[in-house]
């Protein structure tokens, strides 16, 4: 008997709400890809109306926010809905409405008012733009409701049951806990912010603690995806559910001590910021290392992928590989360079790949048409290859001092590389391939979503393909 790491089956209204979150997630992933396209069109000879509203940095802010906040947390909404006991769904629907409204406000903010884009970490900002700020606030309230429901509307007997399903439910629950603590420390930072700070420094400090803790949410759900996808691929995962729960518990403990620096240090103290880096680096790396090894071991002895699960199998492998590369690169971070970008892309793209694979898996379960498997497979390979090339280019350039968050000649690092390829070439080509294959994901997934759901037979959960 294989160990089946998956959430229990749900149907009816609960499934409809989960499908709603999936649609919202795909919509915002698509939206995040629209901004680079607008930028490209604005550079043509045609006089595009948005030319003056969307600078490179404005695009970068919206692209990052829609990817790491809206897309990832809407997928978290799917998990928290599937894992819940079905009570209080109205709160999940209200949260969805707020998240969508917030996204619409934030997305069109540059068209409605001037914006000063700030490339601070975690939640890049459009400063002095009330539409963007209010959109972000609506989104924040939505996520607060979502995480509270994800924590409360569960059967605690199931969440702490020491079997495979219980381990997955515990992982999903721990992600909600991290999400709630991230919001709490964000509000705390706002309340104790030293006077006189403004611009980028203000927002760096405001989002620093919450942004770091939010990574525990992403990581817990990434590990749930790895376990679930491995079960779908028929892998027998060694170690057992109690070990998996213990590893998730490390994340829970880290999240629970997260408010500590607020009690002992000033917000502006350098030790305050380095404490969260330490917590994330040392606390958020243990569980992925061991669960990644366990899943990989299972895959080594699993049956070869079939036509039906090849895209899921490869997504899982690429996700583990990207996360490993991102983690190793993180060990070499020193001065500010694109090495940091490479590390972050490796880690966060691993999450995105796993979430994309779950989207492919969920579509037919949620009552949508199955995605085209051939194109899904092509999308998985091209996205992974593009991202690997992008990351290698960033790491290579970063090793030679290539600066972060700049474009054009400002990324000059002299004659580095070979006649046929340079770090900048790899970043550009890999990034372009990754963006195009991100759009391909939308092309594969959107027709199924647009055709709508068949509600009669749909049941989500388990690990059948």
């Amino acid at each position, binding site marked *: 008997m294989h160990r089946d790491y998956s959430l229990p089956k749900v149907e009816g209204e609960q499934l409809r709400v989960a499908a709603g979150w999936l649609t919202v997630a795909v919509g915002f992933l698509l939206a995040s890809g629209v901004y680079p396209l607008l930028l490209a069109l604005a550079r043509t000879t045609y006089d595009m109306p948005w030319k003056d509203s969307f600078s490179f940095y404005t695009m970068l802010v919206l692209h990052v926010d829609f990817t790491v906040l809206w897309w990832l947390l809407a997928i978290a909404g799917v998990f928290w809905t599937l894992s819940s006991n079905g009570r209080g769904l109205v709160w999940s629907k209200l949260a969805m409405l707020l998240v969508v409204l917030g996204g619409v406000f934030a997305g069109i903010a540059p068209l409605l008012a001037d914006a000063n884009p700030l490339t601070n970490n975690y939640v890049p900002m459009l400063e002095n733009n009330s539409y963007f700020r209010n959109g972000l606030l609506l989104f924040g309230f939505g996520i607060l409701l979502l995480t509270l429901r994800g924590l409360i509307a569960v059967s605690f007997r199931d969440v702490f049951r020491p079997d495979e399903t219980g381990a997955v439910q515990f992982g999903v629950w721990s992600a909600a806990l991290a999400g709630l603590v991230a919001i709490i420390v964000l509000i705390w930072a706002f309340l104790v912010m030293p006077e006189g700070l403004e611009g980028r420094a203000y927002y760096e400090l405001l989002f620093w603690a919450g942004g770091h803790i939010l990574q525990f949410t992403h990581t817990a759900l990434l590990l749930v995806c790895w376990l679930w996808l491995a079960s779908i691929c028929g892998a027998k995962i060694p170690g057992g559910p109690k070990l998996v729960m213990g590893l998730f518990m490390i994340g829970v403990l880290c999240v629970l001590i997260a408010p500590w620096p607020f009690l002992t240090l000033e917000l502006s103290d350098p030790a305050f910021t380095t404490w969260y880096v330490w917590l994330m680096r040392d606390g958020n790396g243990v569980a992925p290392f061991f669960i990644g090894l366990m899943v990989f071991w299972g895959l*080594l002895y699993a049956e070869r992928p079939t036509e039906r699960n090849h895209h899921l199998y490869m997504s899982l492998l690429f996700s583990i590989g990207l996360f490993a590369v991102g983690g190793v690169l993180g060990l070499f971070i020193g001065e*500010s360079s694109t090495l940091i970008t490479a590390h972050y892309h490796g880690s966060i793209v691993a999450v995105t790949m796993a979430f994309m694979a779950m989207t492919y898996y969920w579509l037919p379960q949620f009552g949508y048409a199955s995605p085209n498997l051939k194109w899904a497979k092509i999308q998985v390979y091209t996205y992974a290859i593009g991202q690997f090339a992008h990351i290698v280019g960033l790491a290579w350039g970063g090793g030679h001092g290539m600066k*972060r968050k700049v474009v054009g000649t400002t990324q000059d690092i002299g004659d580095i590389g070979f006649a046929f390829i340079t770090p900048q070439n790899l970043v550009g080509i890999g990034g372009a391939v990754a963006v195009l294959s991100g759009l391909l994901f939308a092309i594969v997934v959107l027709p199924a979503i647009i055709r709508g759901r068949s509600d009669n037979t749909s049941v989500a959960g388990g690990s059948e393909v």
Partner: protein
Amino acid sequence: MSDSDGKESLNYPLLLATIVIIAIMVGAATMKLLGGDPETKVAKVKITKEQLADFTAHIDEMVAGYTVRVDEKGWPVVHPPAGSDVYILARAYNFGRFTLELEKGKSYQLKLTSNEIRHGIAVRELKLKETINLGEIRSVAFRPEKAGTFDMVCSEFCGYGHESMVGRLIVTE
């Protein structure tokens, strides 16, 4: 869940691919570690908080004694004579509010310490890269071999202002 006939077989292509990828990563990391930092003569001395005040006084003396002009930011450009000690205090988030000017091919003794947590100093083009610890003065023999204007950046993550911790070093012919 897919059915299994119960017979387990190792996926050799997957294992081989993984070994190759790990070997490449380890190789790249080893090259980075071995070829990373240049060889420099370094001496370290422990200091107390009181001695840190003396260090700050040395900086003030250096700035007062060797300022040759003011740059476009309004900062003093400090040009210590060849062979002298150059005092740099790393703090959140600057290396001191002055621009340092040195001469190409001349030797200096950099005296480095930190005001709070661990910082670093790196001038990639001049092959300078040192960690700067709290409670320690690090003396580094330094001879710039290239003329130009360079950024001195912090090479150890030191907080939210780490990226903005950039000083300026001018090397004259």
